[in-house]
C-alpha cells in the first residue's frame, strides 16, 4: 500500500503553485490534506508523477467576515471549520457538515478546498455548498475567475478546474434568519454517506418562501433537488412531506454494496423531509 514514485514540490505561494502546474503539465497534482488523493494513489487508482504540496500555504487557511458573506480559504481544514465561531454563528450548515466528515483524525488533515476540488458526489461539504449557492474563487495562468457551486461540478470526480488552476477561496452567504440542516445517513461509524441531504429554508409570514436542497451521493455529482425546491416555494410548512416526495426527481443514484438505487431514492425523499422540517425548526 504505497504510491507509485513521484516527484515532490512545495508551493511557496498560489502563484508558485500555478507556475509549477504549468511546468509539469497534466501529470502533476496538487496535494492539500491528502485524504482523498493519497488513498487513491496507494490503491494505484491515481499515479501523478509530480505532487505539488499546498501544505505550507498557511495564508489560505482562514474564515473571514466580509459583510453579507463569509470567505473561507481553500486550505482551511475540516476541523477548523467545525470549531470556527463565526461560521457556527453565521453559517452553521458549513461548520456542522464539516463535523460529520470521516473521523477527527481525517478532519485534522482534510481541507475544504480538497473536498470541493476532488468533486466526489459522496462527499458531504459539496452538497451543503450547493444548497448555500456558494461561489468558488479559482486562479490560474489566465487570471482569476469566480464559479458558482452550481456550475462547478461536471461529472464523476470532474470539475471545471483547468489543469493549471488552484481553488483559493469559498464564499458562503450569511444565513441570517434562514433555517438549515444536514442529514447524513450511514450504517456504520466513520462511513461515507449512503445519502446526505443539505437544506437551507427561508420563511416569511409562516410559510416557506424558498428552500434549497443539496443531495449527496445521488448521482455522479452533488445535485440540487430542483423539483422539491419548486414544490416547497410558497408552501405551507404542513405540506413539507408531500413537497419533498419529489426530492429524487432528476437524480441517477448508483446501486452498490451500501444500497440499491431504489433505496437511495427513498432515502433522498425521507431525508429531504427531515432536513426541511429541521431547518424550519431552527
Amino acid at each position, binding site marked *: 500500500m504505497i504510491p507509485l514514485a513521484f516527484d515532490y514540490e512545495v508551493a511557496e505561494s498560489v502563484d508558485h503553485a500555478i507556475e509549477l502546474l504549468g511546468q509539469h503539465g497534466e501529470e502533476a497534482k496538487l496535494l492539500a490534506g491528502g485524504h482523498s488523493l493519497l488513498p487513491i494513489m496507494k490503491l494505484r487508482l491515481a499515479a501523478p508523477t509530480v505532487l505539488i504540496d499546498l501544505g505550507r500555504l498557511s495564508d489560505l487557511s482562514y474564515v473571514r467576515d466580509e459583510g453579507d458573506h463569509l470567505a473561507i480559504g481553500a486550505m482551511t481544514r475540516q476541523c477548523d471549520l467545525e470549531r470556527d465561531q463565526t461560521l457556527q454563528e453565521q453559517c452553521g450548515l458549513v461548520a456542522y457538515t464539516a463535523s460529520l466528515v470521516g*473521523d477527527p483524525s481525517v478532519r485534522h*488533515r482534510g481541507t475544504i478546498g480538497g473536498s470541493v476540488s476532488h468533486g466526489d458526489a459522496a462527499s458531504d461539504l459539496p452538497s451543503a455548498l450547493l444548497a448555500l449557492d456558494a461561489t468558488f474563487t479559482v486562479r490560474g495562468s489566465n487570471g482569476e475567475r469566480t464559479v458558482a457551486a452550481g456550475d462547478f461540478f461536471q461529472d464523476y470526480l470532474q470539475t471545471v478546474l483547468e489543469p493549471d488552476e488552484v481553488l483559493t477561496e469559498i464564499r458562503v452567504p450569511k444565513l441570517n434568519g434562514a433555517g438549515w440542516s444536514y442529514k447524513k445517513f450511514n450504517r456504520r461509524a466513520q462511513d461515507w454517506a449512503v445519502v446526505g441531504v443539505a437544506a437551507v429554508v427561508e420563511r416569511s409570514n409562516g410559510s416557506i418562501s424558498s428552500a434549497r436542497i443539496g443531495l449527496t451521493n445521488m448521482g455522479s455529482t452533488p445535485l440540487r433537488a430542483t423539483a422539491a425546491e419548486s414544490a416547497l416555494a410558497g408552501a405551507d410548512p404542513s405540506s413539507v412531506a408531500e413537497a419533498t416526495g419529489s426530492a429524487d426527481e432528476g437524480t441517477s443514484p448508483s446501486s452498490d454494496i451500501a444500497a440499491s438505487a431504489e433505496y437511495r431514492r427513498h432515502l433522498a425523499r425521507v431525508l429531504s423531509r427531515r432536513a426541511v422540517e429541521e431547518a424550519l425548526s431552527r
Partner: protein
Amino acid sequence: MRRIQMTVDGRAHVAEVEPRLLLLHHLRENLGIGGVHAGCNTTSCGACTVHLDGESVKSCTVLAVQADGHEVTTVRGIMDNGLWHPMQQAFHEAHGLQCGYCTPGMIMASISLLKEKPNATEQEIREGLEGNLCRCTGYENIVKAVQLVQQHSNGQAQPAS
C-alpha cells in the same frame, strides 16, 4: 530523495527520504518506533495514529515529506520521566485493551480527543474515537478508560474538600 527534518518524541531527526514514503513507515522502519502499529493501511483502523503538531492523524495517510519541519509524537514519547501518561495508566486500570494491537493508536486518539473536548460526554467519546477500530474489547472499557482520565483530571482541578 528529499531531505527532511522533524522532531519525533522530542528529538530532532534528519533523513533523506523518497517522497512516497509514508510517515508510518518512516517512524517504524527508519526510526525504529515499533509502537506505531500498521493495521489496515487504508485510513480506516487508526492503529497508526500519532500526533502531528499535537493533533491526531493517521500516519499511513501522511507522507513523511508532509511532516517536514513539524513535530510528531508517538506513543513512545508520551511517558513523563519514566511515568506512564495518565491515558496509559487509565487504559491499564480500566482494562481498556486485550490483544493491544489497537492500543497505541487508541491512546493517541484519546489524548487528542480530550485535549479538544476535555468534558466530552460518553457519546462524544464514542464519536471522537470512531476512526479507531478495536476487534477485541467491544469498546466499553476503552470508553471507561477515557472517562477515568476525565475524572482524575477533574479531581486535580478541584482539590478535595
